């Protein structure tokens, strides 16, 4: 479900702005580290969840305004390269500040412990994540479908110039969208912190997986990100138990297969 949060941010940014953000995984990681830092300072996981992501979003707004904006007119590759540079910078910056070691964050007291269902036991935190995923997904969907901002976003994604003509301030919108995507990524990171260990490699791992999700689902497609994340998540967990040897290669095989049969992804629009 975390993968879904990251992928939605990535696919929204791509759909509206046409920018594929390599640094998205780094923002995710930054969210996790900030969450960890807030736990250390104030002892509160919830405070980290509340405060960390907006900080990352503000940072992302600056990145969009001062670094990304000058390269919109140029070849798409330059945007990729710019975000790639940012990724290197952020990843090593994190390593510089927090060190290369892995950190463990405990889930908040309410969500600590395990629940016994039949003969299996599940960590409460994992169940919390599983419940939270559809909630966040539903909230996002409602946001896109019913609110004014959501409509503006969809309009801009569909036809940037047309939206500009009818009075949408596209540059402001772009900054907002980029910050919004970063907020989602950082939220995912803060939520992931107690679930997995926090370390400098976590951004790199998630970015590749979310790339695959986004391509499988169809770039810029919101339901695509959901279904893609679901497929990849299921595939990963089943393959780990059934055939652990090929598990790591399976996502790529799936990627190749989807591209051969549906080059635009499962939910991509034909053009």
């Amino acid at each position, binding site marked *: 479900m975390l993968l879904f949060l990251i992928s939605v941010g990535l696919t929204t940014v*791509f759909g509206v702005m046409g920018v*594929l953000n390599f640094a998205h995984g780094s923002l995710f990681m930054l969210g996790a580290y900030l969450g960890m830092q807030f736990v250390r300072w104030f002892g509160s996981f919830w405070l980290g969840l509340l405060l960390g992501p907006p900080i990352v979003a503000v940072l992302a707004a600056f990145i969009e305004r001062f*670094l990304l904006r*000058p*390269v919109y007119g*140029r*070849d*798409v*590759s*330059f945007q*990729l*390269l*710019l975000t*790639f*540079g*940012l*990724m*290197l*910078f*952020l*990843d*090593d*910056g994190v*390593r*510089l500040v927090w060190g290369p070691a892995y950190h463990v964050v405990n889930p908040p007291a309410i969500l600590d412990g395990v629940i016994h269902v039949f003969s299996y036991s599940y960590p409460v935190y994992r169940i919390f994540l599983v419940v939270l995923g559809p909630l966040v997904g539903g909230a996002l969907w409602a946001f896109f479908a019913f609110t004014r901002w959501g409509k503006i976003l969809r309009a801009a994604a569909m036809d940037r110039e047309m939206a500009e003509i009818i009075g949408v301030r596209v540059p402001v919108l772009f900054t907002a969208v980029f910050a919004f995507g970063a907020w989602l990524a950082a939220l995912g990171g803060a939520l992931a912190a107690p679930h997995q260990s926090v370390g400098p490699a976590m951004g790199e791992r998630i970015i*590749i997986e979310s*790339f*695959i999700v*986004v*391509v499988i689902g169809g*770039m810029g497609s919101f339901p695509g990100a959901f279904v893609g994340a679901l497929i990849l998540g299921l595939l990963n967990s089943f393959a780990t138990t059934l055939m652990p*040897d090929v598990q*790591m*290669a399976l*996502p*790529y*095989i799936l*990627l*190749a297969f989807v*591209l*051969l049969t549906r*080059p635009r992804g499962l939910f991509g629009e034909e053009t």
Partner: protein
Amino acid sequence: MRNILRGPSIAGLVVVAALVAAPWALSMYGVIVLTEILIMSLFAMSFNLLFGYTGLLSFGQAGFFGAGAYCAVLTLIHGPSSLWAALGAGFLGGALLAVPIGWLSVRRDEIYFAILTLGFGMMLFTVAHNWRSVTGGSDGLGNFTLPELNLFGWTVSLFNPRYFYFLVLFIVVAGVLFLLRVVHSPFGLLLKGTRENGNRVSFVGANVRSVRLFAFVIAGALAGLAGALFAFYNRIASPEMLHWAFSGKAVLMTILGGAGVFLGPAVGAAIFFVLEHFITAYTTNWMIFLGLILVVLVLLFPKGVLGSVLSFLARVRKGREP
């Protein structure tokens, strides 16, 4: 045409002569560093054939580089203990892998191509990392001996870094000449055409996909060759060589030196190592500087160092003539 080619080819001869003479002027350490720069130049230039000339940003070039390294080392361990056979295996291994991966990847361009190559590159990485019985897993393959080079009955031991340098220089120059030939052939024009406008190229009757696939295979083969040399240089083939961070190195070198400029990646590779040398003397976190440098380059000098210098020279010359 003759006049256009004469200037660069004289400059090229001077560069090659300087490189041949370099071992006598440099310390042993300098020779070793120069060897690595040469290998990485070939690798980065194979990437530039795709990015600079064909307009395809590949983030999986290290997959072929590493595959070449493994093919070469596996040939030495299981097959004939011949240097040329191992190098050929690296070259062929890179090319053969590039055929199916390229076939899948060139269907899409720009961002999709970048993601696809990244994905497939990481797939190769996972294979190298997990297929313990063949690749040795994360330890890599290191237990091989470098055979002696047999030159018309005159055997040379490659354990001397200077001799090894000459071998690398010879192969890299051969690879570069091959690339030069490709770039200046009608096929090279087609490549640039697909970069500028794929539709028009297909209107004049060329098959854009097969043109791109062919470029992809050539790039894969040369990356494999560079990988084989790199495995000999390090005496090991390890999974890190296939990781996308390694692909990123080729991307960075190309951007540093100048994408689309023929020798840009080589200049970029040299700058890369000099920078790495100086910055790591102060701090181990040198990627942070590298990221900054890349951001600044993309924003201010999209042509790279060599590209900017060349266009500056061109402007000076133009200003003087009329």
